[in-house]
């Protein structure tokens, strides 16, 4: 009986861990932001968008995705968001399905890259958390990806450079 309960509990926990992250839990993060980019694209919207893409590489990557979520905020002065506002996402990423592959902490800046490896050797998701004193960005991509896709995503891929609503720090050309 106890064994059955444990199995049920483990199953329920696994099912819970499989559920997507609730981005509403990050709403507080951008409450004081002066500029923000808030993008939520679910699987159906991504399929619709893919139909209008001309670049085959991007199209191939996008058709396998289930969701793309971006939260990017810029603040007028430091201290306008709390590290604890990021806690729900960090807690979600600490589940066994996710693996942190980059964790850079410098002064008041942190960069984290999380991957969700699948048994097939592919990836089930990618998450990036970049936090600085006056800006914070979250990228969360769900769906099947290959490592090479991430390489492609960090390359040009025919995606135009963008002017993020930032102070010039963020430019795709910087390096």
């Amino acid at each position, binding site marked *: 009986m106890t064994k059955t309960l444990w199995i049920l509990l483990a199953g329920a926990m696994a099912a819970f861990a499989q559920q997507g992250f609730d981005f509403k839990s990050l709403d507080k993060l951008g409450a004081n932001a002066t500029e923000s*980019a808030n*993008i939520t*694209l679910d699987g159906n*919207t*991504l399929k*619709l*968008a*893919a*139909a*209008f*893409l001309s670049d085959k590489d*991007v199209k191939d990557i*996008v058709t396998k995705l289930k969701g*793309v979520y*971006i939260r*990017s905020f810029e603040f007028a002065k430091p201290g306008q968001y709390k590290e604890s506002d990021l806690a729900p996402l960090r807690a979600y990423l600490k589940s066994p399905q996710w693996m942190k592959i*980059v964790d*850079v902490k*410098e002064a008041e*800046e942190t*960069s984290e*890259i999380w991957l969700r490896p699948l048994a097939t050797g592919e990836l089930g998701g*990618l998450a*990036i958390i*970049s936090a600085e004193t006056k800006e914070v*960005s979250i*990228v969360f*991509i769900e769906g099947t990806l290959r490592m090479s896709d*991430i390489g492609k*995503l*960090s*390359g*040009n*891929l025919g*995606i*135009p*450079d*963008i002017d*993020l609503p930032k102070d010039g720090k*963020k*430019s*795709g050309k*910087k*390096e």
Partner: protein
Amino acid sequence: MSIEDDLRSALRREPAPGGFGARVLAKTVKTEATPRRPLVFALAAALAAAAVIPTGVYEYRERQRGIEARDQLVQALAITRVQLQQARGKIRQVTKRRL
């Protein structure tokens, strides 16, 4: 024969052929029905338009939604790229410092 005689002969009064009045009346009855035809056409056109216009509007809206989604996706991928490049840059800086 002079031309006057020809004209006179051509324009002379002749009795109407038998049943002419009945035939004219019959045609009159038919022409009374014809005004209904444009109405039928108009109704058919309205029905066709009612069927076609919503489809067109739906297709237009879907297209607009798709273009909007694509633009958002391109922006999202561009932000992803920037974040990946920044992370890569930071790793390089930290590695250089440690070396």
